[in-house]
């Protein structure tokens, strides 16, 4: 459970010579009852871990695709509590590690301490909070350490080297290297500096480094995995589920696997 589960899953993937692939889905997009089946699909398709977004009315780090998915989930009246409850009752049906991606406010409304406790009970292994930079993380870390859920830190293209070092030191599970100056959403191509940046971050930590934001094609998956240890794919996965084009999800995940040696 928690950090350990994440570490083991990543280790296992990398040992095989594959790259880590973490798909993002918005919890409750398509209704809360669709969640267990989508988790199962991604697990069977070969995802290493799953990032599960909690809908929020004001998601400033997200672009149009994930904003729209969040609105759909909110229309279905999905809440953090409903997601945790659903994860709890389906805990035994899955082996894939679960990482919650939520803004701070739903956690505040839930109660920070209660949230930390309930996450563990629901089988949550990691946590990504996009509006919680390290300056404010004490508000939550005390409760988390106790409960052993990994707090995954984000590094940005704009972070100067001394910040990158601290972030790399502190991160648990993996280091999330944000690859665009902007919000989430499909990109056509990445700036040249991105490769250097991922390599630079990679040198600073022994934890896996995953590139995320804008990764939307099998080509991106291969290209960005080369510098680090894998990718997080959000908006494109959300779109594929919404438009029911699951074959494209499989293609994306397959792009993270080692090419068979002939």
């Amino acid at each position, binding site marked *: 459970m928690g950090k350990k589960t994440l570490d083991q899953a990543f280790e296992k993937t990398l040992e095989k010579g594959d790259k880590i692939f973490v798909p993002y889905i918005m919890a409750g997009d398509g209704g809360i009852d669709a969640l267990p089946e989508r988790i199962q699909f991604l697990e069977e398709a070969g995802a290493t871990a799953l990032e599960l977004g909690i809908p929020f009315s004001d998601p*400033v780090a997200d672009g149009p695709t994930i904003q729209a998915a969040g609105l759909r989930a909110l229309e279905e009246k999905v809440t953090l509590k409903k997601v945790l409850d659903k994860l709890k009752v389906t805990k035994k049906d899955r082996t894939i590690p679960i990482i919650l991606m939520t803004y701070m406010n739903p956690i505040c409304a839930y109660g920070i301490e209660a949230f930390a406790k309930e996450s563990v009970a629901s089988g949550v292994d990691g946590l990504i909070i996009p509006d919680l930079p390290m300056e*404010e993380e004490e508000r939550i870390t005390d409760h988390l350490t106790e409960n052993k859920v990994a707090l995954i830190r984000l590094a940005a293209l704009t972070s100067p080297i001394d910040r990158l070092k601290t972030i790399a030191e502190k991160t648990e599970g993996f280091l999330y290297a*944000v690859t665009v100056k902007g919000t989430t959403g499909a990109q056509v191509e990445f700036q040249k500096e991105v490769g250097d940046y991922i390599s630079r971050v990679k040198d600073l930590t022994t934890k896996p480094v995953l590139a995320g934001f804008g990764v939307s094609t099998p080509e991106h998956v291969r290209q960005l995995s080369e510098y680090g240890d894998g990718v997080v794919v959000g908006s494109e996965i959300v779109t594929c589920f919404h438009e029911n084009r699951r074959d494209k999800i499989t293609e994306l995940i397959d792009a993270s696997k080692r090419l068979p040696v002939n």
Partner: protein
Amino acid sequence: MNTSKETLPDKKGHFGQFGGRFVPETLMPAVLELEDAYEKAKNDPVFKREMAGYLKDYVGRETPLTFAKRLTEAFGGPKIYLKREDLNHTGAHKINNALGQALLTQRMGKKKVVAETGAGQHGVATATVCALLDLECIIFMGKEDVRRQKLNVFRMELLGAEVVSVDQGEGTLKDAVNEALRYWVANVEDTHYIIGSVVGPHPFPKMVRDFQSVIGDETREQFDALEHRLPDAIVACVGGGSNAMGMFAPFVNEASVKLYGAEAAGKGIDTGKHAATLTAGKVGVLHGMMSYLLQDESGQITEPYSISAGLDYPGIGPEHSYLKDTNRVTYEGITDQEALDGLQLLSRKEGIIPALETAHAITYAQKIAQTMDADQSLIICLSGRGDKDVETVRERLGGQVNG
């Protein structure tokens, strides 16, 4: 002078549990750069001179502290004074802050400015100073507000700004802030975000308060020159809370001065149609800060309502949350109808049509005046003039005034 700005916020931008910096990592370097630039600028005599020069010769400061004789008689209690922020260039206090931040933008070597606006007052003030200082200016405004405030949209465009209509969410102020933040994330290296109130991540709440403190500093001196003492009470309206914070700051550590903030109670707190964040909100995180917020049980931000677009915000400056919890400032909701009454009263008694935002403070002052004596004094921060609201008021009053 012993004012709150010397002690709070702490180094991390905290006012007690409130404030802080809840922004994506991509923005953190810019927020730290801004803090550094601001701390250097505020102690730099060159910057101070430049700021003072523009405030005097361009904005038209200092603004008068007007003794309101007929309003005093109408209230039948303490002497009423009005701090006349309505007489600033562009008609409200907003320009004090916009000017300060635009000068800071230049100092940081940035050429572009992004801002949000609700009713358009902060947008107009920002477009104005950007024209003055030759900065590129992009203003995000909710779709609904663009529709309601066509004239202000045109004003901003006349001033050379680009106005972007925001479709996301309900298309109002909070959505405009979200889009401005997203734009800033994507353009952070050459763009400064001129936030319009004492909200957002540190150092904005502190910096905006300091730029607006010119209101309180002048008031204190002017009142002292007239009455040779401190006032007994001060009232201001609060949306995000910048005019109130600027007015209160030099008085916060003067225990004898009672401070009051008027929130928008809209159609009444019980109806759910209001913007009374401190009265009915819960603590949470929005737009980079921890503060009281209007939200539902699961932490989704709810849409505020007020007749006055400038008070129509689901959050509040973190320092106000702190001042509420420490009982230093008393906050109370004033309804649309009460504000309309206040607006008419001031218009007829003093020949000043206040902004609808300000009208909330007038009515609250009337209530407070009932508890005070004739030898006491009460100052109202007259944050803006009402020209922009005349159409709204005409619609609401219908034939009432024509008789």
